């Protein structure tokens, strides 16, 4: 299983008690997110809704691309890749 870095940005770091990064075993972006939520249970409902869907206003980047423009959560990740969890640049106020 590839070892993947996950970096938490902005408020998502706060939700994880201040953690900025961690390393998980995952083969896809989706499994990396799930492993992250397992490590930081306080992140689980902040990342996904009650049906397991990724919440709005979250930018997830892997291999230099936002996943919604690539393979989505099923996008494969390789050993040493970094997945970034970023508050999306959306909305106002």
């Amino acid at each position: 299983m590839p070892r993947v870095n996950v970096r938490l940005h902005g408020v998502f770091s706060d939700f994880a008690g201040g953690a900025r990064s961690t390393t998980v075993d995952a083969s896809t972006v989706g499994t990396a997110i799930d492993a992250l939520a397992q490590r930081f249970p306080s992140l689980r409902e902040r990342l996904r809704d009650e049906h397991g869907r990724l919440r709005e206003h979250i930018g997830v980047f892997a291999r230099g691309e936002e996943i919604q423009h690539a393979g989505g959560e099923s996008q494969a990740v390789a050993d040493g890749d970094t997945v970034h969890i970023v508050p999306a640049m959306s909305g106002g106020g």
Partner: protein
Amino acid sequence: MAKGVAILVGTRKGAYVFRATGARKRWKVEGPYFGAEPVYHVAFDPRDGSSLYAAVNSAFGGPRIEVSRDLGKTWKTAQNPAFDDPALTFKRTWHIEAGHASQPKVVWAGTEPAGLFRSDDRGMTWTHVPSLRAHATEHEWSPGAGGEGLHSIALDPTDPKRISIGISVAGVYDSADGGRTWTIANRGTRTVMPVPKEVQHHRCVHHLVAHPTVPGVRAQQNHVGTYWGANGGWREISAGLPSDFGFAMALHPGDAETAFVFPLAVPERLAPEPGAAVWRTRDAGKSWKRLAGGLPRGARLEVLREGMSTDRLDPAGVYFGSTTGDLWASADEGKSWSLVAEYLPQILSVGTATLA
């Protein structure tokens, strides 16, 4: 004798707690809590005298409910309300209500999409009450300007099985069996748009309140009219008010015929000329008095549905917060007003905690 009062303020950018002694003259501010996040409601639990429940509706990380056991000093995140139906996703909490005195662990929450949730552990976990959305009219509920929300929960003070809720746009629904079954309770209210006579839902209730100690006393501010509960239905009490439109409404804790409203002119949804005023009835809506002593002349403020509240002291304190971030208090039942705070973020809710 009460030790004091706390005003619980939810804003577009966090929640604040303002505390004062029973004289209610000098206020000390605590917070903001959840500083970057919209807080639609902060509810006090009078049964333990120390719990607060906050409806934090953040865009980033989604909505959540926060629980404090020490009047706001520390907070713990609850497990989210969750719908089983994959077509429904919990988007925000509109209102949280401490349960009946005989059920000290029960707390209720109203959400968007319109759902009623029950907690049996003082707010830490939530269970959907599916019977409400199983009502035959559910497929005809529709969102108002603020979304399709269950924004009001009004409990009978003596019978824990009697629960009323308000949904925009659907109206008031009553349960007499603790939430197992529901009946439409809109008789006597007008509709915004013409509907067939037999349609008893599709009413635009804006805020529903029940008296904290006198059973059967309830009132509502509606999109079209202000109403007093009467004979299982509603009696319109808009006559004497400058507008039949508004959101905020609060009942007097000691006098079951006294209520306060903050009428808004349409279409601008601001206090009508000559400016901000609370209107009070002392006879269950038969007559109204404009109360503006100390309020800024010409200021056409706006107060939202959770934006006004009363405390439980004698004389009763009345409080309201404006979308311009001004928090006003009256320690003499509305006769005179003083500014508690200004330049807050947009105020979404004002609640109170009367501290023993």
